């Protein structure tokens, strides 16, 4: 039987090859066939997830909620010291110095990344801004969000912090961070679906010692992950409860 693996589309394009190396490494470790399918947008991936196409998913926290509570997936590991944080940035020349300087009618550039968008909107609440009094436009990538800020076509942009930090120095020098979230307990995780549940002990054992294996270490580097940490069901439920409090 061949299993199916997918990865939340919010990783930096530089790490695409890393996920292919990971898949090859994991297949050898488990001695099972795994097919990797990558997506460039969240909506298409989510509809395939709902169609029960996948057995192994490196998911963002928002999707983890659906996978665990509705589809019986279990989180097995998370990347160590890597949490999902959101940045609200503006054009460096803009007059806005704090979030509270933004006002009704503000043009917001965002992506279809559900966690980043949710957290971005939460950080706008202190300025009394919400979806009803802002002009929100969704773009295909963080680079396009940045372009809209640089061109003056958006007043504020939402970024995954990791993605913001990976933008070129030239682009970042033309932007300014208004606020950066510091939540630390919201992060991606690797989840295993019911069809693959029998492999959970082997997956966890392989991944938790991955950094000790010479090939594994190289694969982790190519994915920009230091090492994996175990996740138990209570840690997963805690994160899902937290995400639930952020969704109205």
């Amino acid at each position, binding site marked *: 039987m061949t299993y199916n693996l997918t990865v939340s589309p919010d990783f930096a394009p530089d790490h695409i090859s890393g996920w292919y190396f990971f898949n090859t490494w994991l297949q050898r470790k488990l001695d099972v066939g795994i097919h990797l399918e990558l997506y460039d947008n969240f909506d298409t991936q989510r509809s395939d997830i709902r169609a029960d196409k996948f057995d192994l998913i490196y998911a963002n926290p928002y999707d983890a909620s659906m996978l665990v509570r509705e589809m019986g997936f279990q989180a097995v590991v998370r990347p160590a010291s890597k949490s999902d944080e959101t940045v609200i940035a503006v054009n460096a020349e803009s007059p806005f110095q*704090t*979030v*509270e300087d933004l006002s009704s009618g503000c043009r917001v550039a965002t992506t279809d990344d559900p966690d980043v968008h949710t957290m971005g909107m*939460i*950080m706008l*609440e*202190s*300025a*009394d801004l919400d979806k009803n009094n802002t002009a929100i436009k969704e773009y295909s990538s963080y680079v396009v969000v940045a372009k809209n800020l640089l061109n003056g076509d958006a007043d504020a942009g939402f970024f995954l912090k990791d993605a913001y930090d990976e933008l070129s120095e030239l682009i970042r020098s033309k932007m300014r961070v208004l*606020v*950066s*979230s*510091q*939540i*630390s*307990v919201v992060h991606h995780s690797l989840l295993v679906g019911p069809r693959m549940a029998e492999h959970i002990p082997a997956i966890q054992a392989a991944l938790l010692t991955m950094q000790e294996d010479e090939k594994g270490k190289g694969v982790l580097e190519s994915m920009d992950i230091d090492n994996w940490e175990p996740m138990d069901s*209570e840690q997963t*439920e*805690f994160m899902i*409860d*937290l995400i*639930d*409090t*952020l969704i*109205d």
Partner: protein
Amino acid sequence: MSEQDTGEVSTVEITYFDGTKRMTDIVDREVPYPDGKLIVSRTDPQGFITHANQAFIDMSGYSEDELIGTNHYILRHPDMPAVAFKGLWDTIEQGTKWHGYVKNLRKDGAYYWVKATVIPNIRNGKLVGYTSVRRKPSRSKIEESEALYKTLMAEE
């Protein structure tokens, strides 16, 4: 920080819903909510704190050891009407999410405003506790809440 803050210190007796009383100093000084942070805590079904994140420790002024095992009502500011908390408990005991604006009391007697959300934690169909997440409220919501709570306090 609120423009109306006087920095005045007063000693008040706070009576909690379970009849417990404590004397404490109240300082009329607002500590601004830190940008980008969420204050996170969990309690058992009776409201005793089982988890506090660093933002909670920093903003409340208590140490983690002081918070864990203490009832969440230790944060109740005397300017908060009892009816607001009754609404919270009535909502979460029905298994639903509660949102509200809350003026919290710090250990040093100063205060901070939050937009709070509390949800029940259900595991295998059983209530095991509550998670409370607080975020930065807008100035206009704080002003609306101050006015509302003053009216409610006057009626209590």
